[in-house]
């Protein structure tokens, strides 16, 4: 083990009613398990109130986040979930990768598998955390689906508010909405499917520092998550 320990703050969002399994490490090596040195999980409601804080045994490989959420959240609520990991950079030269399996129980929908946002730490020039401008984008299919789109945005900051500018692009027009997030607050920003008769084609997200950010699609009839993806980050 090296004498220096690195840190990585990852973030996701969770709602009751889902199987939600988060991989705490992604790789193993031949000589044994590559494990974290320490991991703390914190859950916050939309107003930044701490709902729970747990130390996780770093020997665990997968965290049952769905079970934890079921213990602290009422149906219909949502939490910002932060994973504060400490790791040996010799074991994870890039950084530990956190992926997650997400499945709405009894929905009949297939499960989703997604990469958990790395919001702070890791190798500085590989995660867009140290630059002033953070710029992300996502494309949408323009034919109509029975699906609603939104951005889930959360602030992992400790002290400062952050403004997030969300611009939706349509064929010939755009709309912009600014959302202010206090530390540990989060919000779901609905993306209008149409504007001036044109379908949503793209969303851009700009902020002064890295947010927890996912684009989500919900089945219109049930609200079930059928799309849960990270945006494409510029200026990495």
């Amino acid at each position, binding site marked *: 083990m090296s004498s220096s320990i690195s840190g990585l703050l990852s973030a996701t969002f969770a709602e009751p009613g889902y199987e939600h399994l988060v991989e705490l490490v992604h790789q193993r090596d031949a000589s044994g398990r590559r494990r974290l040195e320490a991991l703390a999980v914190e859950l916050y409601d939309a107003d930044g109130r701490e709902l729970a804080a747990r130390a996780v045994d770093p020997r665990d490989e997968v965290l049952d986040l769905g079970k934890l959420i079921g213990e602290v959240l009422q149906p219909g609520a949502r939490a910002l979930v932060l994973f504060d990991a400490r790791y040996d950079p010799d074991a994870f030269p890039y950084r530990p990768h956190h992926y997650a399996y997400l*499945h709405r129980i*009894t929905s009949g929908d297939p*499960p989703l598998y997604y990469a958990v946002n790395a919001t702070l730490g890791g190798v500085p020039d590989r995660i867009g955390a140290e630059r002033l401008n953070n710029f992300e984008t996502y494309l949408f299919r323009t034919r109509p689906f029975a699906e609603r789109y939104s951005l889930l945005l959360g602030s992992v900051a400790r002290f400062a508010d952050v403004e997030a500018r969300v611009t939706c692009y349509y064929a010939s027009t755009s709309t912009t909405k600014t959302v202010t997030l206090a530390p540990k607050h989060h919000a779901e920003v609905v993306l209008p499917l149409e504007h001036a008769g044109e379908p949503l084609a793209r969303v851009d997200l700009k902020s002064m520092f890295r947010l927890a950010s996912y684009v989500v699609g919900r089945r219109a009839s049930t609200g079930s998550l059928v799309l849960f993806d990270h945006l494409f980050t510029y200026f990495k």
Partner: protein
Amino acid sequence: MTRLLRRVARALLGVERPPVYYLPWLVRPGIDCVLMLSNLEARFRSGHNAGPFAFRVTQYAADGRLLAEHHTRLERGTDVAEVTLAASDTGWGFVTIGDDPVQSDLYVTLSDGAAYAATHGRQEFVERYPARSRAVLAVVGSLLAWLARTVPAFVRYQYAYVGAESRSDLLLLNLSNVTNRIRVVTLPAGSPSVLVRIPPMGSHLLDISRLAQPAVQGTRVVPLRLEGNAWFNLYVVGASERSTPRSLMHVK
């Protein structure tokens, strides 16, 4: 040390690694597979931001056959072209993107008509082995296959999930011009395991319930070790007992 050995082995075998951007595709009855092509980041690249941009999409079938070539052109970097990938009733594989350099993530979408899920492709490389190396690998690979083994030149690990309602299958992509024998082993016991033979530039959709029975309640996590004799990668495919696969996900 391992990296040095790999470099030496590649030099001895004469392997070339041309860069390539690739995406998976998967078609089932009732499921549309559509690519979304753009060059969004090009607008920030001085000297590379003026269109038009040409895309050549080369579609490979599961058996490695060249199934189709699609050509499209974007006038501006912010334009998006949708390319529908057709197959017969059922098929899967991957596409490579050629012509102008890609300066953005490209997406592949799966839709049941009511909703869709998307994931992006990967900028990596394919391995090109010369004829003599292909012959050596063919002989050694065939011998080891008798023992249900492969040359473990590339090893990666992946968690799979098996539940009563849902599971995560794996779409294994052979990113080389040699037959790739990929051995998938469940951990920690090392058993059961399967040996999959994938033709050059071919792919295999591995039903994970072949390796692990679903949990009675909830979802069972199945750690896997994958060994291949040539470069390969994988996408996770979300599958359900009650519907066709409708989500794909890249893994680093």
